[in-house]
């Protein structure tokens, strides 16, 4: 018999609240604990609802759930995700068209710099693949006519870094201290826990940008505070302006990328063909770029406090 949604929007379950607070406290300890350390089991997991939206007690609890999905509770760590995504072009007034497939990874590395604030740096690499057969490509047909489009690998190496804490995100190139809030919802679905996240757009980015994802993990991992990093399966999309290689000149419209992927244990788990190409072309990108942390944070941004 299925679990039902009767607990979804019903009275809050006090045992769940107690468990969550316990999990957060345990998580802090687990972040520095050695692997395999014993952990206290959460209080009566069966008392929590089968389905529903999790209510966080405060911004700190909410942040810790998000950070555990996207990064790791450890003081210093890495998070690697890989994905395939299809890119679509949406010129105003014309039929949207698929253009190219990409296979890529996002590699982030982070250090705790405050009670609940981490500094994060990251890089992304994605290689274009043929829409139909998935082969690596350097050219794709222009769905709106005209010459074939030269499409190049995407290597995003200029990320300025960001601080992430209960107040949100603070990009390290922000002109002023303005923490960016985020839309983050966690839902139980029977044996799965899903995290829905709409990321904020930093100041100075193209206005027509949004990125949103739904990531799911096994509930038993979410319920286990020894798990400092949740290995999710994820899908999502982002909206962004036409890239230069689309040759859209000043036409109105935008692109849309829709992805499906997962968080991996480390670079050794990257898909073989992708990893082989990266090892050949940019082997240094298979490792965290810890040297990014050598750059000092501007003093006016470095005055973070917990929420």
């Amino acid at each position, binding site marked *: 018999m299925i679990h039902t949604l009767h607990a979804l929007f019903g009275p809050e379950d006090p045992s769940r609240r107690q468990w969550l607070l316990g999990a957060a406290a345990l998580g802090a300890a687990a972040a520095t604990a050695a692997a395999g350390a014993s952990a206290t089991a959460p209080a009566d997991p069966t008392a929590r609802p089968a389905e529903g939206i999790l209510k966080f007690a405060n911004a700190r609890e909410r942040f810790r759930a998000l950070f555990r999905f996207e990064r790791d509770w450890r003081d210093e760590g890495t998070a690697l995700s890989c994905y395939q995504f299809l890119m679509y072009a949406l010129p105003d007034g014309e039929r949207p068209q698929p253009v190219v497939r990409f296979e890529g990874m996002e590699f982030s590395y982070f250090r705790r710099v405050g009670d609940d604030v981490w500094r994060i740096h990251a890089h992304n690499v994605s290689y274009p693949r043929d829409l139909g057969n998935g082969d690596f490509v350097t050219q794709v047909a222009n769905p709106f006519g005209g010459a074939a489009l030269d499409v190049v690998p995407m290597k995003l190496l200029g990320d300025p870094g960001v601080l992430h804490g209960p107040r949100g995100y603070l990009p390290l190139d922000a002109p002023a201290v303005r923490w960016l809030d985020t839309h983050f919802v966690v839902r139980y679905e029977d044996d799965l826990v899903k995290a829905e996240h709409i990321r904020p757009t930093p100041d100075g980015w193209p206005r027509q940008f949004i990125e949103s994802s739904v990531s*799911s993990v096994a509930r038993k991992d979410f319920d286990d505070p020894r798990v400092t990093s949740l290995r999710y399966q994820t899908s999502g999309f982002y909206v962004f302006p036409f890239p230069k290689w689309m040759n859209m000149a000043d036409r109105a419209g935008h692109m849309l990328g829709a992805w*499906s992927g997962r968080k991996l244990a480390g670079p050794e788990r990257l898909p073989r063909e992708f990893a082989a190409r990266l090892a050949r072309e940019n082997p240094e990108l298979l490792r965290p770029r810890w040297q990014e942390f050598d750059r000092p944070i501007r003093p006016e941004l470095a005055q973070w406090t917990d929420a």
Partner: protein
Amino acid sequence: MDRRVTLKTLLAGSIAATSSTVDALAAPHKTTHWTSNFLEFDPITRFRQGLRVQRSLADEADVLHWYHFTMVAIPVGSAPVPVVRWEGIELSHHRRIGTDRYRMHGHNLSFPRALDSGAFVDDVLNPLTGERVKVPPMALTSDPGSVISPSGIIRLDAPGVAPRPEYRVFRREGDYVKLDAIRVAPAGWPVTFIEMGCESTPAKSFDDSRLEWLPAEVSGGYVFPWPAWMNMGKTPGHMFAIWRGYKLRDIDELPLEFRRRAASEFPQLLQVDRKQFDTPIPGLHPG
């Protein structure tokens, strides 16, 4: 198979693929690359494999998808903004009418929910205009039906038109098989429309050719014009929605709150009107 079993089947792939995270913490990393390769099929096999993942290979079957989705408004030249969450179903029925040829009819039903709390709502703030707008449930019941085959899809409001090919690419990723699919709108639909999805099924189930129906987790999105309730007038722009859900066995697996409301307000939409199959299809394209 109830929804818990469906989820467990899907999770079995997930857990096996990543191993238990705790186990992974305790053990040194294995140098085992994730399998990721494209599967090549002839058009008929691709169609039949697609049916197993997306629907069922049975000659006749109800097919039910349940999902949550978030709608985002994308005005021209301005920042996209999330507007409302929905919980919904797509319920359809197909019947085999020839070799690898199926006729299907179906409908969708979705109820709006608040973005953050998830509570059912009947109005939301239009973040672009600042106006509170009424959001009615979406009961999409005017689909004319279609005929699908390896050649593509024929919509039954234009049965004489040649089938439109459908994009389906399969990938094997570790213990999963994923199907990327794109549905392009038929002629006559608003130009600002496209629908894309990625369906994921355990490779173990996929490899068992005895199984006509495969459990699937679905994610995807669609682009569509401003709905009337957004009151956007002639403002240029469009909407985008992203969903995540499952293929379920039947309505008994639906979350109780959704099912109760559907049974109370739209009881007729908890089943497919089979009478539609009695209507002949004059001039059906042979493709």
